[in-house]
């Protein structure tokens, strides 16, 4: 029998460009599912698109080139740092969830601040990104894939609105 390498082993490593493309694809899938009234799955994909845009914006702001590979080990070290850093409240910037959407938004904000002085507009935009991530995280969790729960139009609308804001602003999040 012919050996077939598992598909996961044949995937290219992430890059900023590939992450952004993936985010667009997840968002587009969410839009199709929303129209078909598959609200839970639509919400699930909107959440992922937001997470991926925030990750991509973080790596871009951390001076990763558009096509520079971001392997699992590199990502693990970034997340380790984000989990060490503390907010003014004393809580860690990124929690231990495997898909810490809000943590990525805060880590992006921290990275931008650490890289140099930020203008008022950039500061406001980064704060807004964190607010959008919090809005999404009120409803979105990766665990949704195991669930059968009813998502209302209002709930989906909140998540879609926040994800749309991230889609429209993600490239500006790494700009001065």
């Amino acid at each position: 029998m012919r050996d077939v390498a598992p598909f996961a082993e044949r995937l290219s490593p992430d890059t900023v460009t590939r992450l952004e493309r993936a985010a667009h694809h997840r968002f587009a899938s969410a839009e199709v599912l929303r129209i078909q009234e598959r609200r839970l799955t639509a919400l699930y994909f909107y959440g992922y698109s937001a997470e991926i845009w925030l990750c991509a914006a973080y790596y871009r702001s951390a001076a990763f080139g558009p096509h520079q590979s971001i392997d699992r080990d590199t990502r693990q070290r970034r997340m380790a740092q984000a989990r060490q850093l503390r907010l003014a409240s004393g809580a860690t910037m990124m929690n231990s969830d495997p898909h810490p959407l809000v943590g990525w938004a805060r880590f992006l904000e921290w990275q931008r601040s650490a890289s140099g002085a930020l203008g008022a507009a950039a500061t406001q935009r980064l704060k807004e990104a964190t607010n959008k991530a919090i809005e999404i995280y009120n409803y979105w969790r990766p665990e949704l894939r195991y669930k059968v729960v009813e998502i209302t139009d209002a709930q989906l609308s909140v998540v879609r609105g926040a994800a749309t804001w991230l889609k429209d602003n993600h490239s500006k999040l790494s700009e001065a």
Partner: protein
Amino acid sequence: MPVIRGQAQVSTITAEQRQEVAQQLARELAGERTPGGPVIFEIPIGPQLVIDVLVVWDAWEPFSSTDRSGMILEAYKPFAVQIAQPLGVTYHEAIEQQVLPYAVVPMARRGEIDEQDLKQAMLDEAAFALDNGKVDLRFPTMSLAEQAHKRLSDALPKGYWSIVQTIG
């Protein structure tokens, strides 16, 4: 009912402590092996000469993340500009955060080779000496683990060395 009050944990670090840790880090970077010193990994991350610096050291314990990163950057001057990420973690944090996922371990059976020789060879490769007397040789990338694996296999082939990856 009893009243149970938590105590705020405030660690105070003196200027002397800070200086002592910074100086030991600088000596290690200069190539001197100091007792209880850090293990420093320099990891290339792109086509340019940019590196992540990971310093695993229990002396970091009382220091904040920002302090640790600042001290690493200070120690690397004037090459600090080449560092993409200066990250300081204790051994325990490194395991918990899975930043050292590749372990090089001997697979020899008891009696096949002197255990002290194995342990010393691992310590020479910058293994972490644990409280229970064991040693743990770990790396942040497969490439670094493979290099150590080759050196150990050449030096002690009867160690039957293997690389084990921790997946979270």
